[in-house]
């Protein structure tokens, strides 16, 4: 599903070069739950964002369904992010001027929201337990509820891939468990590949794919 080939990422900070990833090669199988683990600064999030075409690798290539992301032009990258990838961030990253339903529909605002999409967004919010809070703004929702809105937003596009960066990082244990449960349910239901960056290994199951990074290199890879 996702093939990472000898990817390096160098961040330039003034005159200092930070090697976030140093020749990472790996394969994430499709329709599975995968985890990228590692200490802070190991390059987990960087790898996740490169897979989501939010950034470009300095060298190397990433293939998604056998298509190299580096061959996509700007428009194709936008389409890839809008239609193929759903993002779930640690701090939810909802738009505070929009209500829950509008946040779910946000990817489609520029091209126009169809009645079908609106109906499906409402269904998704019901599915993640927010049926009665669809008109609430982020400030009126708890952290767990906001993350569920983010999951619903990621699911609306029926993505090939959900990329989650520390999705329970700002939630208590019980809410974190509920969010993982929610992610596993929808992944199973929609046959979506889910890649999660986390520090918390409590939610990992034996069947999940695990990639451990340390100092921008693969420390361990197993299924």
């Amino acid at each position, binding site marked *: 599903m996702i093939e990472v080939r000898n990817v390096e990422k160098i961040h330039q900070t003034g005159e200092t070069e930070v090697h976030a990833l140093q020749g990472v090669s790996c394969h994430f199988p499709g329709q599975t739950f995968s985890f990228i683990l590692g200490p802070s600064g190991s390059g987990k999030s960087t790898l996740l964002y490169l897979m*989501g075409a*939010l950034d470009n690798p300095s060298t190397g290539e990433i293939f998604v369904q056998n298509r190299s992301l580096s061959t996509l032009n*700007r428009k194709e990258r936008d389409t890839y992010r809008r239609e193929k990838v759903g*993002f779930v961030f640690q701090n939810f990253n909802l738009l505070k001027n929009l209500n829950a339903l*509008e946040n779910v529909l*946000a990817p489609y605002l*520029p091209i126009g929201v169809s009645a079908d999409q609106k109906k499906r967004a409402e269904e998704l919010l019901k599915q993640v337990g927010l049926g009665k809070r669809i008109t609430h703004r982020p400030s009126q929702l708890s952290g767990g509820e906001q993350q569920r809105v983010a999951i619903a937003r990621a699911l609306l596009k029926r993505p090939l891939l959900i990329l989650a960066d520390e999705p329970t990082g700002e939630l208590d244990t019980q809410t974190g468990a509920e969010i993982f449960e929610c992610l596993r349910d929808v992944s199973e239901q929609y046959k979506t590949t889910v890649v999660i960056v986390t520090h918390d290994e409590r939610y990992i199951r034996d069947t999940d794919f695990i990639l451990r990074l340390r100092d921008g290199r693969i420390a361990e890879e197993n299924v």
Partner: protein
Amino acid sequence: MLKFAIRNLLSRSLRSFLCLMGLTIAIAGMVGLFSIAGGLEKTVSQTFGKITGIVAMQPGAPIPLFSRIPRSWGAEIGRIPGVSIVNAEIWSRVNIIEGKPVISPPRFLFGTELPTRLQLKNGIYREAIYAGRFLSLEDQGTLNTVISKQIAEQHKKQLGDSIEVNGQEMNIVGIYETGSILLDVAIILDIEVVRDITRFDPESVSCFYLEQSGDVENDELVKSIKEHFKGRELASWQPTSLALANASQSNLLKALINSIDQSLKGSPSSNSEAKNKTQVKNKSQTEVSAIKDPSQQIEKEVSALEVRSASDWGDRLETFTADLDIFLGLMTGIGVLIAILSIINTMLMSVIERIVDFGILKANGWSNRDVMLLITAESSLLGLAGGILGGQLGLVAIYIVNWKFANQVHLYASPGLLLFGVVFSTTLGIVGGLYPAWWTTRMTPIDAIRRG
């Protein structure tokens, strides 16, 4: 997208409001300033639309008030083919009405030759009688007068009352109202009465008002009258004759006025003091002078009468209003510059605050173009609202000025000006939002998200 843009603006209500106010005031200022030119144009078209005849006066005199031409030329003009009526006029400024000095708005004593005035097909004042009657032949040599409604209201006079003008008690037999602030300024009397009151030269008049016979076009008639008076010598009007007749040539103020006068007339003026007087020489005398003085040769080719139709007046004022527009445009430019900086500042601050939001939107498939569209939609909404509010505020200000100074000024904002204000303001909004919008495109989505 538009709903989203509106919500974004409302979520920063104070900043949006302040930016909106900046734009509103700039556009209101623009509408107000351009309404001066608009009002002038409207007044001119209203006024000259009523004047169907032609005015013959002293070359270079800006208006009949400053003109002096020989009285005897009236009969000559009347013999030119195409002229049906020639009406002699004397204009003089009124200094005191009812014991009060008249400064602004100005008032004029208008003496008209009644027998010919009454024969005019289109008598502007005669047809604009609001109360009472116009002057008749029986009013010749009397102090019977027709005054404008403005003057009557200003001095609380009614039909049948007497009014003291420059120390003379006059009887109001009629009140007129043309609706033009350029015409509703006259106190109309028999020409000889005005001549006596103002000690006007018995051999001169201010101008002649002519009506054509109908089968001749105005332009043709103007040309033939000018042609008829070509070669006569009549001194051009000099401003110095009014104010600085006795001043020395070295007087700086005099030199300044001379230069303004020259630029107005577009021809060099003579230094000869003799030319400040109304002089007529016969042809032979002129020819002798022309041999002695080459400069007289030029004058010989020029008509001794300036003849203007309503369209000539309109053209002259159109040129003036075009120049005025440039000046007003420059003044408006200052306000507009401040407004555009205000939009850029507001939008840039707003964009910097929301940089994470734009990262999120890009992560969800929004293109750089979509983000730019959102930002420019917000700024153009500010521009649109500023244009609409500014136009309305400008209109209110114009109504207040027109109401408060009804006799002095007439401002006019045409629908075209208001529409231009809205379009211009919206364009300003779009332009003001472009830089902040472009600024967001410099970052990758992840750089933007990480900023948060």
